[in-house]
């Protein structure tokens, strides 16, 4: 099963790349694209034989141990 994990900086933390992207889009005439924030997406495969509980445990463990720094980031499993 293909899993997608979306990782983003917490909302209270400045994400300066998003600000620059927003300005560049505006310079291209693409207005009204506001509050842009850039995050990262991690995709991975988990064997289909795993139960939902096993899958959740493995993903949570991967996120907490390495993929996400919860001081500055939050994550969401997109399924």
């Amino acid at each position, binding site marked *: 099963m293909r899993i997608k994990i979306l990782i983003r*900086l917490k909302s209270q933390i400045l994400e*300066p790349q998003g600000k620059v992207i927003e300005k560049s889009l505006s310079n291209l005439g693409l207005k009204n694209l506001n509050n842009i924030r850039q995050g990262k997406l991690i995709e991975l495969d988990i064997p289909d034989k795993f139960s939902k509980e096993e899958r959740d445990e493995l993903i949570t463990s991967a996120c907490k141990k*390495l993929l996400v*720094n919860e001081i*500055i980031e939050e994550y969401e499993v997109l399924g």
Partner: protein
Amino acid sequence: MSFKSAVITFPGSNCDRDALVYLKALTNGEVLNIWHEENSLPNVDLVIVPGGFSFGDYLRSGAMASKSKIINDLINHSKKGGYILGICNGFQILSEIGLLKGALIQNKRLKFLGKNCFIKKRYQSDFNCLINKDQVLKIPVAHNEGNFYCDDSDLKYLHDNELIAFEYCEGKFSNSIANINGSIDNIAGITNKDKNILGMMPHPERAFQNFHSSQDGKLILESLLS
């Protein structure tokens, strides 16, 4: 008594050699270089976690290095009261391990900063005891992710326990600003609660020889040796 020290090298470390030269020049004991895949550290007084781009800074700066084999024994070393100095990427690695509070995020103005900066002591520890209050040190920085962030409760913890070792300040260049990278409270370096671990973004090992533009970096190691 001789002072033994070691520098850990990760793939992508690029200040390990400078750190070794810094230690060899200023200490009177054995200086060892340890590969990150080693299981244990030798019995030393100080371990430097050097700057660079360990593991290409993939995922986050210092994230991969913080899971290296040697880290378990680095944690043991800290628990025994041994000194650890993390410089630049080393500071990021110590934060990722959780030995220091907070995290280092991208510089506010999105620029890699490679220049001299000015810092002064905020609270006293063994790493800055020879530095006078309000004495301004000129030490270079070279980082893209040096913007220190922590939440309000951790910031209070850092102040209440007097764990902020160094803060950026204005220097003698007319265009020098105190907050070069967006760090909360101008924080340039912090210690852990026991004050045996220091993480700092500026590079003292690039400011001690006569041909360097400053020799102020000596004061940090000399403080530790005093």
